[in-house]
């Protein structure tokens, strides 16, 4: 018997999900609880478990396709002719236990593959394009819900006058056909009793009624808002003339009225890239930081010849055999050591208070294929040097492969940005929101340098420290920067000061 599995609402009130990956193919034998597909909702990636034993008859959606909740996505041939495909009741088959164990993991959904979070607010969710990320709450139900048509004339049920629904709330089956009635609200659920008759209906509010009469799902409405598109100007191509995302995109990308066709046919002179995902989060975080925290940046050139030598010697030590040792490790160590001497550097401004943190969650800015992210090493101040090296490696690897979890980016207290890897000497870094200072580590290059009154060729770098002048004065910032520099000039100082 063929049974079809319909895409469930795995959150509260989600309306659609994207098929990320099929874990089975037609002809495969499947068992109850076996995970068969990964879907991505506005919230996370979730693997769906099979409700039946059987053989895959058909995959009814493609990877990458966004499917509405309630639409069949896979067909299973459950073998038996009977209607109820009750799965193995015998208990003799031990395998389901293992599969159910996998479900325990499913209670901890995978992190979203894409569209990460900039650090900042505690666990700030990552808005994925137009989708709304909500942790818990009741979202919207699809307009596609089956609704029985009302009888031709809808007599208001005669109860007490106050409880009679006003006639206008009687919603026609296809709201698209509503043109005039100012108070016709497509979503207004007719409430039977005690509804505020006249409370919400705004008589005469024709323009807004026009907007309400436009058919578009809430995520599309949000996208329209984000793109600055007036929905009433868009022609819908979806069911019942509803406006889809594609309609919006087309509308927002349409050239302004009189754009003359002077451009070369093959090479557009301009390109419009929707601001979304990591780019959007980065923009918000940077604006929030740059325009709330008065930034001061100080620079220091440092002879790091000794540090480079120390890195070489560490590499040869057995404790560092299976980790990559880079100068960044010693910069991190120097920062941690200096932060202990000047705790105010590692603090947060809340408005009423300064929260001085006696722990360091050390953020490392990472350029990833998805954009800039700043994961942090939790309690970096407690780590031994080999441990710190491992953590740095791991963080970089995770970031590079795009698997950094939002929690790993939350709760940072100080950030290092390694701009030297881009081949530049320095920059004026912007403080990660929620923190008070950030250190840029520049390119290490050979330079003429005066040592003991003589010119010598030395390895030199530039450090730049930006700090929030609301709580850190020039003196403190300078002391901190000077100490970090001193430790990199003579790494033995790290020992002396820790």
């Amino acid at each position: 018997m063929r049974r079809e599995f319909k895409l469930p609402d795995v959150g509260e009130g989600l309306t659609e999900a994207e098929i990320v990956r099929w874990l089975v193919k037609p002809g495969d034998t499947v068992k109850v609880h076996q995970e068969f597909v990964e879907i991505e909702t506005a919230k996370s990636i979730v693997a769906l478990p099979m409700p039946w034993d059987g053989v895959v008859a058909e995959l009814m959606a493609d990877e990458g396709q966004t499917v509405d909740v309630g639409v069949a996505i896979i067909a299973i041939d459950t073998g038996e002719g009977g209607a109820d495909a009750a799965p193995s009741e015998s208990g003799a088959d031990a395998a389901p236990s293992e599969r159910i164990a996998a479900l325990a993991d499913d209670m901890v959904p995978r992190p979203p593959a894409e569209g990460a979070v900039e650090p900042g607010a505690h666990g700030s969710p990552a808005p994925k394009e137009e989708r709304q990320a909500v942790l818990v709450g009741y979202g919207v139900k699809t307009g596609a819900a089956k609704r029985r048509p009302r009888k031709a004339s809808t007599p208001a049920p005669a109860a007490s006058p106050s409880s009679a629904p006003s006639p206008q709330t009687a919603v026609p089956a296809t709201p698209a056909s509503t043109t005039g009635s100012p108070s016709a609200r497509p979503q207004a659920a007719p409430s039977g009793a005690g509804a505020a008759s006249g409370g919400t209906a705004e008589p005469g509010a024709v323009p807004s009624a026009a907007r309400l009469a436009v058919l578009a799902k809430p995520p599309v409405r949000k996208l329209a808002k984000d793109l600055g598109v007036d929905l009433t100007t868009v022609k819908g191509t979806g069911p019942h003339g509803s406006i889809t995302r594609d309609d919006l995109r087309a509308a927002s990308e349409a050239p302004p009225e009189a754009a003359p066709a002077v451009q070369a046919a093959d090479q557009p002179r301009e390109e419009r890239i929707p601001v979304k995902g990591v780019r959007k989060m980065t923009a918000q975080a940077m604006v929030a930081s740059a325009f709330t925290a008065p930034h001061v940046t100080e620079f220091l050139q440092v002879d790091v010849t000794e540090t480079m030598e120390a890195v070489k010697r560490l590499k040869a030590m057995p404790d560092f055999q299976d980790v990559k040792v880079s100068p960044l490790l010693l910069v991190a160590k120097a920062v941690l050591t200096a932060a202990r001497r000047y705790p105010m550097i590692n603090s947060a401004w809340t408005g009423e208070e300064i929260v001085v943190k006696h722990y360091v969650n050390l953020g490392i800015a990472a350029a990833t294929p998805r954009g800039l992210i700043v994961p942090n090493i939790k309690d970096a101040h407690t780590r031994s040097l080999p441990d710190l090296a491992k953590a740095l490696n791991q963080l970089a690897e995770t970031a590079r492969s795009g698997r950094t979890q939002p929690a790993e980016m939350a709760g940072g207290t100080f950030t290092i940005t390694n701009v030297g890897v881009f081949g530049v000497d320095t920059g004026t870094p912007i403080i990660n929101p929620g923190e008070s200072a950030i250190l840029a580590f520049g390119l290490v290059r050979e330079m003429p340098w005066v040592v003991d009154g003589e010119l010598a060729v030395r390895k030199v770098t530039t450090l730049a420290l930006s700090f929030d002048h609301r709580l850190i004065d020039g003196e403190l910032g300078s002391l901190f920067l000077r100490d970090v520099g001193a430790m990199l000039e003579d790494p033995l100082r790290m020992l002396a000061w820790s």
Partner: protein
Amino acid sequence: MTADAPPELVQLLTPEGERVEHPDYDIDLTPEEVRSLYRDLVLVRRIDLEAVALQRHGELGIWASLLGQEAAQIGSGRALTDDDMAFPTYREHGVAWCRDVDPVKLLGLFRGVNHGGWDPAEHNFHLYTIVIGSQTLHAVGYAMGIQRDGGDGATIVYFGDGASSQGDVNESFVWASVFNAPIVFFCQNNQWAISEPIEKQSRIPLYRRANGFGFPGVRVDGNDVFACLAVTRQALKNAREGQGPTLIEAFTYRMGAHTTTDDPTRYRVASELEAWKLKDPIERVKAYLFKNELADQEFFDAVDAEAEKLGADLRRRCVEMPDPTPMAMFEHVYSSEHRQLDEERTAYAGYLEGFES
């Protein structure tokens, strides 16, 4: 995040399955009783995971998993006698099991076919309460009722670490204290209130709050079913004997998401879960049974097979639950009929009439 067990924790069975002594609490269990506790733990975990799967199948709207909290619930639940009354939150599937509530009845609320599918009086197990902390007031009121009726039982009320911040909970502490009510406050500190960590709820261990209200508090290893049973038994006994309330803080961990709607990777790091997996409430009982040769492979297999059967049965019966008629919603809101209810019912019936069938 203090994943490490603090010293003041009452523990009788270590994560490695070693029996340890505690000066104030002990328990003497027959091998049969230990096996029975193991079975409870495995079966409720299975019920829970089946419910998660049913949600993923689209058969339940939402589910709050008890994964990781089995020992706290079975230990305390098995300490109850028939006369005792329990007030749960929305996560007490293990306690429901101990109160003989048919697991399928737990699903109705989450499937949206009823408002709580069992008769609280029949099981001495109140309906699930979603409004955080409010059941503590109901429970104290109930306990005061027992006191005034001269009844034999005690009351236990379940709530979470997050709930401990609620006004209702603190008020209920005051009332229970000053009236010396026969009640046990059983707080499952699973370290998280959705995305808020325990550090955002309290600067002192929760059990110590009881002192300020004037009754004893104790912290128990919430992943140790023996300790939870021993400590709860004692607290219930004290309550029945007129010694008033006790706050038990079961130190445990929510291993899953807050509910099937939640994604904890957004706010907590994976290493935390890994650390708690080593303290799994079921594994330690299994290790104990095995090491002391109190059970053989045949027993473990039989329990697994029983879980399998229970799971299949639950899946089948869940989808067979009938949808209620719209008019059913008027049935259980008030204990007796009144005019307004009647008007609303009539109006709604009229409204439904207005549709073509």
